[in-house]
């Protein structure tokens, strides 16, 4: 069951589309539910599908197509580091290395305390600030150095 807050937010999204096109709000609805629950379980996907009146599989298609939807648990903070060309030239490798060392996890793993998850990201379109990473798809940190990463991690904890 979706929470009352989630339903309220989804209802707002639905106002942007014609009444008979509820499927149009599937991306927003998935995002809202993911933000609330941390990740998209099968149950969450079914809930979204049921609320919008679309087949479960149609919601699953969307949830598995975009990499910002997480269909596996991701811990409290999902850190996505860009490793594409601009960031790589600005030594994103060392950032990745530092993060892996510090958190004791590799890509697509969740730290033992359930706090952090590391993901390899694609270009986020902000190469001017390379190297960079985003946390929980929402906050972006630019001009990263190992020291800056430490500070961010500390703040997050």
């Amino acid at each position, binding site marked *: 069951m979706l929470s009352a807050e989630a339903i309220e937010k989804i209802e707002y999204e639905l106002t942007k589309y014609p009444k008979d096109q509820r499927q149009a709000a599937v991306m927003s609805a998935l995002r809202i539910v993911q933000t609330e629950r941390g990740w998209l379980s099968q149950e969450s996907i079914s809930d979204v599908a049921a609320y919008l009146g679309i087949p479960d599989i149609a919601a*699953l298609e969307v949830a598995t197509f975009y990499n910002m939807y997480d269909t596996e648990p991701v811990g409290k903070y999902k850190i996505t580091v860009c490793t594409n060309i601009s960031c790589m030239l600005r030594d994103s490798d060392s950032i990745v290395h530092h993060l892996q060392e510090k958190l004791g996890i590799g890509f697509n793993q969740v730290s033992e305390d359930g706090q952090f998850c590391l993901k390899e990201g694609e270009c986020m379109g902000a190469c001017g600030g390379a190297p960079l990473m985003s946390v929980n798809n929402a906050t972006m940190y630019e001009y990263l150095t190992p020291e800056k990463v430490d500070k961010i991690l500390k703040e997050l904890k």
Partner: protein
Amino acid sequence: MLKIEIDGKPVEVDHGTTIIDAADKLGVAIPRFCYHKKLSVAANCRMCLVEVEKFGKPLPACATPVAEGMKIFTRSKAAVQAQQSVMEFLLINHPLDCPICDQGGECDLQDVAVGYGASGSRYTEEKRVVFNKNIGPLISTDMTRCIQCTRCVRFLKEVGGMQELGMVGRGEHAEITAYVDQSVNSELSGNIIDLCPVGALTNKPFRYSARSWELVRRPSIAPHDSMGSHIEVHVKDDKVMRVLPREKESINECWLSDRDRYSYEGLNSPDRLKVPMIKHHGEWQETDWKTALEYAAGQIKDITTEHGSDALGALVSPNSTMEEGYLIKELVHGLGCGNVDYRLRQTDFRLDGKRVGTPWMGCNIDEIEKLDRILLIGSNIRNEHPLLAQRFRKAVDNGAELSIISPLDNNPLMDIAHKIIVTPNDIVNVLAQILKAMSKLQKLSLCLPPQLSELLEQIHVRPNTEAMAESLVGLGETVNLIAPKVGIFLGNMALSAPRFTEMYSLAEAIGGVSGAKGGILPAAANSTGMHLLGVMPASTGMHARAMLEVPRKAYLLLNIEPELDCQHAALARSAMEKADCVVALTAYKSKALDHATVLLPIAPFTETSGTFMSMEGRIQSFKAVVKPLGECRPAWKVLRVLANTLGLQGFDFESSEEVKLKIFDGEKPSDFARSRLNNNMKELVEIETKIKSPGLQRVGEVPQYEADPIVRRSEPLRKTKYNIKRLVRLHPDEMRAYDLVEGDMVLVTQDKGSTVLPVRPDAHVAPGCVRVAAAHEDTLGLGDLMGDISIEKITQEQADVFKSKQMEAQN
């Protein structure tokens, strides 16, 4: 019209035509995988790339509309190069396991690879593997072979009405799957096997049993519902291996329902009767044809001489051919008896003698999708005519408004504009309300016969019926249609209802007021044909129901299992028990025929020639596709010889074609049908709109995979989700009223018979109704499909006692 040129050949096409359609029209072959003329355009396989003048890059022919003066090259160097590159990419992850693939020999990928592929692969890296999915008992999957054309996804979504498959993941990780290991439950699911251009989706029951080039393909007609779908039966070593659709745009297009596709498994059932059998001192004994026929004829003769010819009753399956129907009618009449009927699942015969002609669908199948307003009365269309439901779905997609009046709120997988879910008895009242509302809207009250006008005076129109009536006359939310094309159809539940006469008359009247087309959707392959031939009681004869109510001394059964195929199971069983002699022409040994005296093995539709008449009055003949099994004989031959043995004159037919000629008496069959199909009535029937039944009413649908002896024996269909355990389904309100919770055992009683079943709440059942499916062992003790019924809560112990008693009684 646009003038274009394809490979130098000029052609004129309509605006909006795509290059691939234009090329198909011209007969220029463009390779394709994802494009299918009946599905939406996905343009994701890229196989149909062609070169177009003045365009810098190749364009997908399936998704490019033509423009004036366009010059298209399908075999130019650039086009061929593009096609070859796509082919190479498609084959990168394809396992190339053709030698062990069922699709081998009829595979689009194989064919196109021969035409457009390279002789070897440059790809040496590892290929990806996709795990197989279990999507049910009908379709087997080899997902590694999939090329992601998404035809199956689009079919289920667009034609099937419910997206049950989807493509999850993206790029190299994309794969076709059902939601979390669910099965594909569409009643049209088999079509995705035909659509799959590779061997990813193949026929599960057929799997590994033959190669496509070993099969002989013979045309036939589908023998279950009354659409008359064209089928192609694939035969190996005189055995039916599988059934595929034969394209017929005006009937089944290129589709086939699962029932028509997989019922053939019932033909190869171990239940098949191979030799004639006679019951001797309570034991079944095999015998030869001569003995069996002489014994049967002797018995019939003795009984009719002793008790009068009226002591015989003949029950005929509406799935039998016209030839068989004609012969059994003539045989019974020849004995001076009028008791013959094919309407086994009907209780209301008040319209007999009041019709102008043979009732039929009232329009053509392909007209449905052009309707603006549709009213379905007492029909669970997906269960009754799975493929016809698809035509209605198209109509709704085209903007038609669908109204439903039914005791069941089943999801037809299309948008419903108005629905009224009431008990079968109340349907009559609802129809009267609609008629009243419509005659007011159409300002037509003066045109109605006074009898009907008087009746309508007392009717109170409710708002929801008013809304439905407004929809049917063409009023819409934004646009009012001035002359809407309306279709009104009565389904199986209406046909078996005790108040069918009222429903039919009112539907006729509504049709008259709204200028609608329509009629009945007859249940079985040859229902219309049987009516046309008059396989019905003569003026003095008894109808199917009366023959069972007032048991006959002797019965002649054609292709039926009485307690499963008749309206009143308990009545049918007791009538057979009491009879002195039951001669059954049947393709199967059956528990239902335990009380028979003689079993004569007849050939099912694949082993005999014959003719079916479809719901739209189409008369279609077919030939045998395999030799009869064992000593089975075509029923028309058996009936002929039986008649001769009985000493009757006029049964000298040498072939089924001769019988057909005799039936139509030299007339062109279509002329014959045309002059006799008519839904009108000669006179008005007495209509009572207010019948209050104090108790509950049964809604006894026949599940689609239990409809006739052949499909009942198809193992794969029995394994589908449709073959659910028998339950009593009640509206949640009724559950509360009877103090029941899910899983409670209830004693269900109808007439004198009863049975014990678990109960389940079902909001899709109208309040006041009990949904108990028919044509099943567990419900044989019950009576009418649609009739009064009572339920009583009992404990598990009582249920066990009841069941053990039942077992004892059976042994």
